């Protein structure tokens, strides 16, 4: 069944092209893997990701700033009222202050239980801390201010009855709540907590620190936020009718929308589709996309397909067309022997080629092992196997036409034409395929994915670790088998113009 002489002849006739194409493919592969793995892609992706994460963190800070400010403002307003009440009772400022502090403690507890937190929870500590650090009764918490390099604040009670007391209180609260927030968020303990929450988005502590949320930044941000909030709230409330029965309801409505407005994260402030797309980009593995869907499924297939078209043609149809097959067939080499040997050569040469790309890709992956790359060696080898399966099916197709037609032109036009069509359809289909983020996806082009056999090389399934790619491989394998078998039978039966 196997003619050694013919095999040798085929090797001699085609090794040069094999070497050139294999080298070119491996070179391209190495370039793609090393360059795109070298950081550029990670930078693009991280850039998008960071923008999203940062804006989310900032939204969080703003939300807290408003929250703290409101709590503070409400608490100190109460405190002022307590003080005035107590002072009216006792006439002694000292006693009144002390009693008012006590009542404030009760108020704080009421707030905490009103919000549904237990007395010893982190949130309770936070609220109590916020209120009392702000009030800083008799400089009791001076060490806190010292720890964040701030001059300790003193809540001035001398102007408690003056007309612009409210303005003073607001300004004081803004400053105090900003200091408290900044100090709180810059404590090691809280940073660790934040990082832990952000872990899911791939944020490490180093990365978090690189975002630059310093004490002064947060303080400034909190200050401006509460200022914005306050001014806008005032403006909005001016427009409301104080005498209407649902005034309170409307106030809380306004507040809610204001908070949403100011604290809205980056994603929340974008149209939904864009927000989704950006999230996709953030979560998409661009390296897998480039290596899998772009290289192994397209760019990397181009040269091997050209090799398959040319070689499968020259192995049978070319030799029949030129007449040189006469020298093979007039030497008692059976036709089956010819087809079998040539098919074996074709398949072996493709296998060898894909073996070289496998080696190259594994070496490249070892070189670029960056933490941003999630591609595993197993997935990489499956990619190579997938490309091999596609080439096997295409080689079957080209070999079949090569066996059927006596003219190279026809064999090339039909086998080669179809193969190139498959490749071009894959290229067009990529722009409509779900591996691309939806912003740049042209879903109309997805149609092309249904007309090319290269779609049976399911890179998504390989990356996601599902087993769908296996039965698709099986289809490719069956196609190759059928094509080769048809080629064998046709060549056995046809007239040869030799």
């Amino acid at each position: 069944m196997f003619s050694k002489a013919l095999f040798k002849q085929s090797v001699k006739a085609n090794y040069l092209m094999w070497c050139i194409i294999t080298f070119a493919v491996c070179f391209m592969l190495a370039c793609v893997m090393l360059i795109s793995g070298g950081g550029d892609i990670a930078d693009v992706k991280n850039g998008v990701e960071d923008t999203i994460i940062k804006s989310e963190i900032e939204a969080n800070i703003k939300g807290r700033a408003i929250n703290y400010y409101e709590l503070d403002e409400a608490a100190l307003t109460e405190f002022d009222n307590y003080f005035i009440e107590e002072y009216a009772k006792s006439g002694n400022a000292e006693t009144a202050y002390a009693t008012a502090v006590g009542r404030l403690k009760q108020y704080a507890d009421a707030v905490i239980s009103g919000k549904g937190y237990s007395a010893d929870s982190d949130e309770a500590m936070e609220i109590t801390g916020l209120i009392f650090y702000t009030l800083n009764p008799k400089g009791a918490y001076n060490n806190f201010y010292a720890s964040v390099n701030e001059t300790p604040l003193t809540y001035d009670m001398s102007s408690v009855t003056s007309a612009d007391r409210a303005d003073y209180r607001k300004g004081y609260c803004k400053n105090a709540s900003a200091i408290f927030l900044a100090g709180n968020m810059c404590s090691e303990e809280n940073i660790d907590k934040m990082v832990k929450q952000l872990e899911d988005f791939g944020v490490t502590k180093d990365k978090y620190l690189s975002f630059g949320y310093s004490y002064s930044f947060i303080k400034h941000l909190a200050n401006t936020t509460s200022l914005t909030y306050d001014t806008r709230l005032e403006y909005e409330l001016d427009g409301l009718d104080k005498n209407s029965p649902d005034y309170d309801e409307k106030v809380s409505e306004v507040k809610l929308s204001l908070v949403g407005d100011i604290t809205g994260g980056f994603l929340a402030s974008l149209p939904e589709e864009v927000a989704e797309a950006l999230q996709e980009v953030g979560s998409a593995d661009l390296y897998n996309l480039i290596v899998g869907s772009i290289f192994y499924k397209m760019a990397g297939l181009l040269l091997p397909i050209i090799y398959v078209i040319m070689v499968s043609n020259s192995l049978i149809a070319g030799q029949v067309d030129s007449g040189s097959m006469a020298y093979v067939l007039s030497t008692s080499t059976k036709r089956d022997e010819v087809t079998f040997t040539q098919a074996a050569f074709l398949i072996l040469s493709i296998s060898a080629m894909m073996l070289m790309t496998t080696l190259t890709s594994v070496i490249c992956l070892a070189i670029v092992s960056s933490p941003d790359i999630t591609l595993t060696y197993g997935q990489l080898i499956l990619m190579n196997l997938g490309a091999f399966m596609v080439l096997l099916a295409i080689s079957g197709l080209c070999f079949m036409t090569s066996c059927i037609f006596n003219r190279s032109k026809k064999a090339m036009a039909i086998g080669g034409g179809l193969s190139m069509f498959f490749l071009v359809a894959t290229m067009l289909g990529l722009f409509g395929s779900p591996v691309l983020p939806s912003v740049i996806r042209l879903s109309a082009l997805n149609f092309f994915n249904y007309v090319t056999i290269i779609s049976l090389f399911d890179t998504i399934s390989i990356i996601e670790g599902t087993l769908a790619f296996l039965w698709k491989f099986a289809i490719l394998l069956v196609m190759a088998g059928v094509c080769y078998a048809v080629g064998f039978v046709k060549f056995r039966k046809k007239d040869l113009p030799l």
Partner: protein
Amino acid sequence: MSIKLTNLTKDYGSGRGIFDLDLEINEGETVGFVGTNGSGKTTTIRSILGFIKPTSGTAEVNGLESWRHSSEIVKNIGYVPGEIAFPDLSTGTAFLKSQAEFLSVKDMTRCDELIKRLQLDPRANLKRMSKGMKQKTAIVAAFMSSPDIYLLDEPTTGLDPLMRDSFLDIVREEQKKGKTVLMSSHMFEELEPLCDRVALISDGKIVDIADMKKIRKPETREYKIEFFKKTEYQNFKKEGFLIVRDQPEYNQLTVRIDSKDINTLFNKLTAYGVRLIAEVKYNLEKYFKTNLNIKGEKDNVQ
């Protein structure tokens, strides 16, 4: 080793192909195959090799049906294709080596001998070889395994006259070894000295088969005689020889006589003043011309 064609038909449609060929080539016989381009010579040879499947009828080599037993019968056949195209190999040497491997020929002395006799330089690049060199390489490839049957499809095209003679010598040696040869050509003169029989094929049909023995030793001979004087010319006309051509303006006569009566003619001629006497050679071309003319006339009459 014999070849037998029985009602061999390969119809390519619109009148092309070969139709109802009957031909038997016995072991040790050399048969020539003449015909114009496109008359079906190559199709017949391809059928004998089993490269094409006959529409009907059979080609047999040594009792084996060609189409089904192609790979077995070609073992004994040396084939020089009409259109020479070599595999994609670098040099003639590489090709001959590869061919030797296919044929399981280990001993290359025969090959070297053929190369020397045909003055071939096989180191030349296969692609850059001239027509003649390619032809020589193909001949060496076909002859080096010393097969029992040779199918030579216009083997002398592109060869210079000297090389053609060397080639014909080689074929003659093979004939002496008892090999069977089927050689196609459109040149009568190279088949004449070589063949036992020559088949003329036209439009896919064997029109006539000439037996070369009869042509080489014809029963009648023709002589062209020119006389000095008009009177002698006129006198000779009355001698009673069969005159096939009369050219009074040159005083020339062409007479046909039985081969055994030659002496009578020469004895008679001693009495005449003869300026020129020449035998008009009877050859294949003449044979086919006369035969086909007669046949053609018959056909016309019918």
